[in-house]
C-alpha cells in the first residue's frame, strides 16, 4: 500500500499543474481579447507595461550632455535607475560596465543609468553631484549617467521606481519589453538584451 502514496501525490501534482496551466492560458486569452478591442496596434500607449512606449524625458548627464530617451530610438536601451547608497546597485555596476565594454557596440545597445539624485543622502545639490561623480570614478563607469535632480518633476517617479535598482529593457522601436527589479549580472543583461528586437 505504501508504494502508492508517492505515486498518488505525483499524479495529483500533475493534475494540479495542468489545471493551473489551462486556467492561466484561458485568463491570458481573455486579457488579449480585451486589449484587442478597438485598439490599433500602431497606436501604443504611453505607460510602463510590456509593449508600452515609456514616458519620454530629457536629463543632463554628469558630463553636462542633454540626453533625450526618444532620441535613442533605433538602438536597444537598458534604462537603469539607481542610487549610490544602494548595495545591490553597487553590486550591479561592475557588471553593467563589463557588459557595456563587451557588447554595447556589437549588440547596438545603450546603457542609460538614471541616478535618483533627489534620493541621494547629501544635503546640498552640489554635494549630491559630487557623490555621484566619486561613485562613477571609483567604478570607472563609461556609460552615460543622468542626474534626476528635480523633486517636483522627477523621472524616477514617472517610472514609479520604488525598489532600486530597477531596469527597463527598451527595444530599438522604443517599446518597453521588460522591467527587472533587482541587480543583474553580465549573463542576465546579455540574456535580456538578446531577447530585444
Amino acid at each position: 500500500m505504501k508504494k502508492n502514496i508517492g505515486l498518488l501525490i505525483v499524479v495529483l501534482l500533475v493534475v494540479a499543474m495542468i489545471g493551473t496551466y489551462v486556467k492561466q492560458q484561458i485568463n491570458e486569452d481573455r486579457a488579449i481579447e480585451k486589449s484587442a478591442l478597438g485598439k490599433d496596434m500602431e497606436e501604443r500607449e504611453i505607460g510602463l507595461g510590456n509593449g508600452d512606449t515609456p514616458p519620454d524625458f530629457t536629463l543632463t548627464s554628469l558630463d553636462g550632455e542633454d540626453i533625450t530617451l526618444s532620441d535613442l530610438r533605433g538602438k536597444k536601451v537598458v534604462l537603469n535607475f539607481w542610487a549610490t547608497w544602494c548595495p545591490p546597485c553597487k553590486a550591479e555596476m561592475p557588471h553593467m560596465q563589463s557588459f557595456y565594454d563587451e557588447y554595447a557596440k556589437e549588440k547596438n545597445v545603450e546603457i542609460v543609468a538614471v541616478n535618483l539624485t533627489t534620493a541621494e543622502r547629501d544635503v546640498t545639490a552640489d554635494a549630491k553631484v559630487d557623490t555621484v561623480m566619486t561613485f562613477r570614478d571609483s567604478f570607472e563607469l563609461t556609460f552615460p549617467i543622468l542626474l534626476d535632480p528635480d523633486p517636483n518633476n522627477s523621472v524616477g517617479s514617472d517610472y514609479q521606481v520604488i525598489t532600486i535598482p530597477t531596469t527597463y529593457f527598451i527595444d530599438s522601436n522604443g517599446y518597453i519589453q521588460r522591467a527587472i527589479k533587482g541587480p543583474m549580472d553580465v549573463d542576465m543583461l546579455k540574456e535580456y538584451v538578446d531577447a530585444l528586437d
Partner: protein
Amino acid sequence: MINTDWYSIRALTLPATAIALLVTFFMVWLILRLQFSKKWSEAYSDAVFTFILVWKFSLLITDFKAVVAQPISLLYFNGGTIGVYLGVIVASLQIWRKRQKRLLQAQSMIAYSWAIILTQSIYQWLVVLFNDNSTMSEVTTLTVLSILTIFILWKLPTVKQGLLLYTAGLMIVAFFQPLGIWQTAVGISLLLLCLGIALEHERIKEGGKE
C-alpha cells in the same frame, strides 16, 4: 525555458527558475519522505544542501574579483551555469562517496530514480507555470514529462532503462524549448544519468540483485 519573471522577497530578487528549484526540492523531499524510509529523504536533503551551497558560493570561483571588491555580490549573484554544474558534480561526488553505506540496502536505486526523475520533472513543470514562453514549448514540456514521469514511476522497468528513457524524453522536450537541446537541464540530466548507471553497476558488483 527562458526565465521571464522575477520575484522580490524584500531586498532579494530571485529569478523564477530559482524559486521553482527551491519549491521542487521541498516537494521531492516530501514525496521521498512519504514513499520511502526516512534515510532516503535525508540523503536527498544532504545532496540538495551541498548543491545549494556550492552553487551559491561558486561565484568565488567564477568571479573572484567581484566578490573581493563587493562581498555583497555573494548575496545577489551566483556562479550561473558553471555554478549549477559544479553544484551537481560536488553533490554527485558526495553521493558516490557514501555509496558503500547505502547501496546494498533494498530500494536504494529506486529511491535514487524517484529523486532524480521527480526533481527534474517538477522543476520543469514549475518553470512552465512561473514563466511565459511559447505555448508550443510549454504544452510539450507539460504533457511529455507528465506521461513519462508517471509511466516510469508506476511501471519502472529496471533502473537503468527508466533513467535512460527519462533522459531521452527530456532531450526531446528540450528540442521544443526555446533554449534548445544544448541547455543546462539536459547536461545535468546526462550527469545524473551517468551517476545512476555507475551506482547501479557498483550495486550489482557488490552482489545486489538486478
